[in-house]
């Protein structure tokens, strides 16, 4: 199975196998990272699934919707690598993706 690499808020990195078609949030959440609360369950309304994407992958990801952009605007930790992990699905091409869980707002 393809995998992604997740760095926690404490700076520890772990690899996570993913099922293509699942969202990044689902993959991270199911691997029991306590830092990802995902309070809204993936409907783009809580921003507690905020991650930073490795710059080499930013372009490869599906584009951000206006809803995702607006919600990220509300985070004081937004930067150019920010994404909501529930708002994109993982394809086999994203094997090796590296992400970091953003600080809590």
């Amino acid at each position, binding site marked *: 199975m393809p995998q992604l690499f997740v760095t926690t808020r404490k700076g520890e990195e772990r690899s996570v196998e993913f099922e293509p078609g*699942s969202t990044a949030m*689902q993959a991270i*959440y199911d691997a029991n990272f306590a830092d990802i609360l995902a309070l*809204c*369950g*993936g*409907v783009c*309304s809580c921003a507690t699934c905020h991650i930073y994407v490795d710059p080499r992958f930013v372009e490869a990801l599906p584009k951000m919707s206006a809803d995702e952009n607006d919600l990220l605007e509300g985070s004081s930790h937004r930067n150019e690598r920010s994404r909501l992990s529930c708002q994109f699905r993982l394809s086999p091409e994203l094997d090796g993706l590296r992400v970091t869980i953003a600080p809590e707002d």
Partner: protein
Amino acid sequence: MTDQATAERDYFSDPSVLKDPYDYFEEMFSKGPVHQLQSRDIVMVTGYDEALEVLRNTQDFSSAICVVGAAYPLPFEPRGDDVSEQIKAHRHEIPGSDLLVTYDQPQHPASRSLLNRLFAPSRLKAMEGYMSGLADKLLQDAVARGGCELVKEIAVPYVTYVVADLLGVPAADRDLFRAALDQSAPPGNMNDSEKPTEFSALEYMAGFFVRYVHERRAAPGNDVLSEFATAKYPDGSTPDAMELVRLSTFLFGAGQDTTAKLLGNSMRYIIDTPGLQQQLRTNRALIPAFIEEVLRLEGSSKVTFRVARKKTRVLDTEIPAGKRVVVALAAANRDPRRWEEPKAFKLDRPKIREHLAFGRGAHTCIGAPLARAEVRIMLDRLLEHTSDIGFSEAYHGKPGNRRLDYEPSFIIRGLAQLHLELKAA
């Protein structure tokens, strides 16, 4: 002490538990955050961390019994340490097994993804005008009469029309839906152990959705129903038309009693918490924080259910395969290890949004953003049109000695009726 005095009350049928479930949950919590009930073959989880653990763990816990709980026997005799195959083979015999909330992997995330876009913030934002106009229409009449019964006269039609609008149901059909729902009992009915959860209204509405989906698939337009009817699974395949029918119909069931009852529970806090009504009138921006605290203290879903697929653990407690679990969301929301002064009503709790009133994890209530918007807007309009809101004392008695009837459900927490006196603004 006699056996009688120490015997546990039955969660599923005892009227005193219905009246005050919190007192009962506290009693169970004192026996341990994960506790095997005496009266039924089911484990009750009342601790916050423990509840979270069960909700998160979709590997070991199935949602198949989510709407029937222990009110209905498992259709099989669990064998061994892994009953996954037995659940799979028998799930269609469990009532409610065609509702999204009872699905497991791999069908669950696929089906859920079809609904995601309906609840996008921009779409909900676009509906706010409709919601507030609808609330005004329902309330003007009530205020002119000087009062109303909030649950059935206002809340139920309101939430039914809103879900119909969300899905783009043609206006002419909306009244028919409402009439069908008016006649049905809420899920987890304590008064009917033969049929704890009844689905006839949903079946009636399903007839309409069969037509909508076929029509829109044949000739898609730009409306919400067309978008929904032509949605694809994440892997690009096309869902069966009947699956779309089941999903859309379920939204009416899932969003109706819960939201209507939350409105009633909110109203009770507004009226009976000293100073609160005035505080909210002066500063309506506090309404969202107020709603979160009501969800924590008296959310409209008391519990949900899981069944262990495999032999597993919940923190320190071992759970055998096939064991049913009642996750007491309302108890977790008052766990003293998680919430300071858990029984106190406070508007400024840190991390309040981490309450479990909408569940958590894969099955987290998908309609939570809508429910929050619906209740916020209705409360805002109620305050707008009135200068004072009170209980009708003829129906509910005086403060300190209220007569309140709760919906006889082991799932839903909310007033069956709430008669209000409304003083026009």
